[in-house]
C-alpha cells in the first residue's frame, strides 16, 4: 500500500473551485494579490507588490514577510508551509515553492504574513500556467508534485496539491455501448513497462470495498489501455447510486495506484472534462452509466437510475 492512497470521501468538499482566472473579486477588497508562474516541474513562483509606503528592499529587510500556505482542514505542523518573501529585482516581492518542497495532497489557502500581523488571504493576480498544460514528467521515482493555483468561489487564491508515486495519468477515455475504455500513462516507477506487464485495472465499489471488478491492461512502454464492461459493473447494481473507483494494480497486489488526471492547468476537472452518459440494460433495471472525475480529479464510474422521462 502506498501513501498516496487517500481514502475517497463520498461527500464533496465544501468549497468548489472555479477555474483559476474566474472573474476577479471587486477591486479595493483590501487584500493584496499575487501573480503566479508555474514551471513544468511543479514549482510555483509568486510575485506580489510590497506593502504600501515601502519599497521591496525595505520591506524584505524590515518586515520579515512570508507567504504562508495552510492546508484546509488541517491543524498539524505539517499543514503549514512558510515561504520567505524576498525582493525579485523588479521592485516586487517574490516567494518560491519549489517542486522539492513536499506539499501533502489537498487544498492549500495562500496567505501573506507581515511581521506580527495576522496573515491575510491573498487574492489571485495573473496566473501564468502555460507550462502546466500537457505536462509530461520525465523518468524518476521520486513523488510527482502537482500544484495548480485556482480561485476559490469566494475569490481567494488557493492551490490544489497532489503528491503521487507511482502516478497513473488518465488520458483519452472512450465511452462505448458495452463499456468504457481508458487510456493512460504510468509515471514514477522504476520500470513502467515491467510494472504494467500483467497489471490489471481494478474497479472498486465505493459502498463495499470488498467488491471489485477487474479488466486486463494492455501496456506499451509507460502507456496503458484497459476496457471495463458495463455488464460486469452493472451486475452488482441494485438501484440508487453506485460509484466505482478505478485503480491500476500489480497482479500480486504488491502495488496499486489510483487513476487520476492531474497533469495540466485545470484545477477542477468535473465540469470541464465530462463524458456522455450511456443507457445500459442492467439486470436490475435500466441504468445510466458514465465515467467522471471526482472532486480530487480521480477517475470513477457512476451507475444510477435513468431519470423519469419528461
Amino acid at each position, binding site marked *: 500500500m502506498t501513501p498516496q492512497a487517500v481514502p475517497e470521501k463520498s461527500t464533496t468538499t465544501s468549497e468548489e473551485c*472555479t*477555474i*483559476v*482566472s*474566474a*472573474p*476577479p473579486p*471587486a*477591486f*479595493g*477588497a483590501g487584500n493584496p494579490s499575487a*501573480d503566479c508562474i508555474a514551471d513544468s516541474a511543479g514549482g510555483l513562483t509568486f510575485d506580489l507588490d510590497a506593502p504600501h509606503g515601502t519599497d521591496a528592499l525595505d520591506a524584505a529587510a524590515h518586515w520579515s514577510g512570508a507567504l504562508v500556505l495552510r492546508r484546509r482542514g488541517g491543524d498539524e505542523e505539517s499543514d503549514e508551509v512558510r515561504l520567505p518573501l524576498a525582493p525579485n529585482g523588479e521592485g516586487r516581492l517574490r516567494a518560491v515553492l519549489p517542486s522539492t518542497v513536499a506539499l501533502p495532497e489537498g487544498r492549500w489557502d495562500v496567505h501573506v504574513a507581515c511581521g506580527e500581523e495576522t496573515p491575510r488571504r491573498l487574492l489571485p493576480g*495573473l*496566473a*501564468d*500556467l*502555460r507550462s502546466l*498544460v*500537457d505536462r509530461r514528467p520525465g523518468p524518476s521515482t521520486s513523488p510527482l508534485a502537482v500544484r495548480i493555483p485556482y480561485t476559490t468561489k469566494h475569490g481567494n487564491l488557493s492551490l490544489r496539491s497532489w503528491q503521487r508515486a507511482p502516478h497513473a495519468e488518465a488520458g*483519452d*477515455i*472512450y*465511452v462505448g455501448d458495452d463499456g468504457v475504455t481508458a487510456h493512460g500513462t504510468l509515471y514514477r516507477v522504476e520500470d513502467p513497462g515491467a510494472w504494467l506487464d500483467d497489471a490489471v485495472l481494478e474497479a472498486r465499489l465505493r459502498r463495499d470495498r470488498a467488491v471489485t471488478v477487474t479488466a486486463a491492461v494492455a501496456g506499451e512502454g509507460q502507456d496503458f489501455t484497459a476496457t471495463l464492461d458495463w455488464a460486469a459493473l452493472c451486475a452488482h447494481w441494485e438501484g440508487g447510486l453506485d460509484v466505482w473507483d478505478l485503480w491500476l494494480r500489480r497482479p500480486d497486489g504488491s502495488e496499486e495506484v489510483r487513476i487520476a488526471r492531474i497533469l495540466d*492547468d*485545470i484545477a477542477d476537472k468535473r*465540469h*470541464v*472534462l*465530462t*463524458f*456522455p452518459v450511456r443507457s445500459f440494460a442492467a439486470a436490475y433495471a435500466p441504468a445510466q452509466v458514465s465515467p467522471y472525475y471526482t472532486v480530487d480529479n480521480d477517475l470513477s464510474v457512476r451507475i444510477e437510475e435513468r431519470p423519469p422521462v419528461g
Partner: protein
Amino acid sequence: MHISFLIHNAYGIGGTIRTTYNLAGTLAEQHDVEIVSVFRHREQPVFAPSGKVRLRHLVDLRKNGPGYEGEDPEYLRPAAVFPATEGRYKQYSALTDRRIAEHLRTLECDVVVGTRPGLNVHIARQARGGQVRVGQEHLTLSTHSAPLKRTLRAHYPRLDAVTTVTEADARTYRELMRLPGVRVEAVPNGVPAPALAPAEGDGKWVIAAGRLAPAKRYDVLIRAFGKVVAERPDWRLRIYGAGAERAKLRALIDKLGLYNHIYLMGPATPLEPEWVKGSIGAVTSSLESFGMTIVEAMRCGLPVVSTDCPHGPGEIIADGTDGLLVPVGKPDAVAAGLLKLINDDELRRRMGAAALESSARFDPGRVAERYETLFTDLRARGALRGSLHRTRGALLSTAFRAKDRGRAALRKARAS
C-alpha cells in the same frame, strides 16, 4: 481638456464598460477625466478604473443601501427624454430623465461623450452650449431597429461627432443618416498589451473565447474541429465563456464523440493567461460589431482563423498575413483554415509574430491619441462655428422628427 463620459452602468460587466475604462484611463494620463454612471447597483465596480479617473453615479440602486432609489415614485414612472425605441428604455424613468438633465445642465467640461444611443440622445438634446458632444456607437447601426434608427436620425444632427468601432459601420452611418456637419469617424476599441509573455506557438491547442451565444456559432466551430481531429487527433480545442448555449454545445460535442478533444472551459477573466496556452485563435461568429477577442488573441501572439462576418474581423485581420479569414457558417472552410496553420509550424509562428506586431495599433495609447485628435479638432471647429452647426442641427432634427412623425402616421393609417 476636461472629458466627461456618460455610461449606462459602470459597475457591471461588459465590453462597453471595459472599453470605456481603458479609454478613460489612458486619456486621464493627460487630461481631467470622469465617468458618470447613470446607475449604480453595487458598492464596487467589477473592473477597476484607473486611479486618475473619477467615477460617480446619478441613480442609486444599491439594495439595502441608505440611498436606494429603486422605489422612488419618479423611478417608477416611464422616461420621456430617454427614447422609447432604445433597448434599455424599460430601465430608464422620469427619475433618470431628471437626473441626467440636471447632470448635463450643470456639467462643466470641454467634451461630453455618450456611450449608448439613448444617452447620446440625452447629450444631443441637453448638453450645454460650447461643449463638444460625441456619441459613441459600440454596436452597429444596422443591428438597431428601424424605430431606433429614426430616433437617432432625429437627434444625432445635434452631435458634433459620432464614433463607430469599424470603418464599415462608419460608412453605414454616412449612407443611412443625414448628418451634415457631424463628424462620423471609426475609432477601434483599445486592447492593452498583455502583462504576460506572448504565446510560444508550439502547444497543440486552439483557443476560442466569448459568450456561448447563438451569434458566436460555436456549433460551427465544434463541427469544424471534428474535421480537424479526423486529420490531426493530437490537436485540441478549448472554448472559454459562459452562456445559454452551453447545454446544446455540450450535447453536440458528446454526439460527435469529441469529448476528448473539445473542452468547454467556463468563463475566464482575464483571458490573456488562457490565450497564451494556445497556438491558434478561432472565431466563427456570424456577427461581430468589433471583434475584441480577435484583437486580444493577436495581442497575445496568436494567429486567428476568423469568419469574415460583418463588421470587425475583416478590418482587424490581414488575411494570409497575420491570420486567416474564412466564409461564415462553413465548418469545412473553418477546418481548412485551422489545418493550414496546424500543418505548417513555420507559417503558424510567422503569422503569430505578424499578429503580435500588427495588433499593436489597437494599443489604448494609440486609440486614445485618435480620440484626443478628434476632440481637439472638434473644439477648434466648435469655437468657429459651433453655434451655427447646432442651430442647423436643431432645425434638421425638427425637420426629421416632423418627417418621421408623418411617416409613422402614414403607416398607422395604412395599417388601420
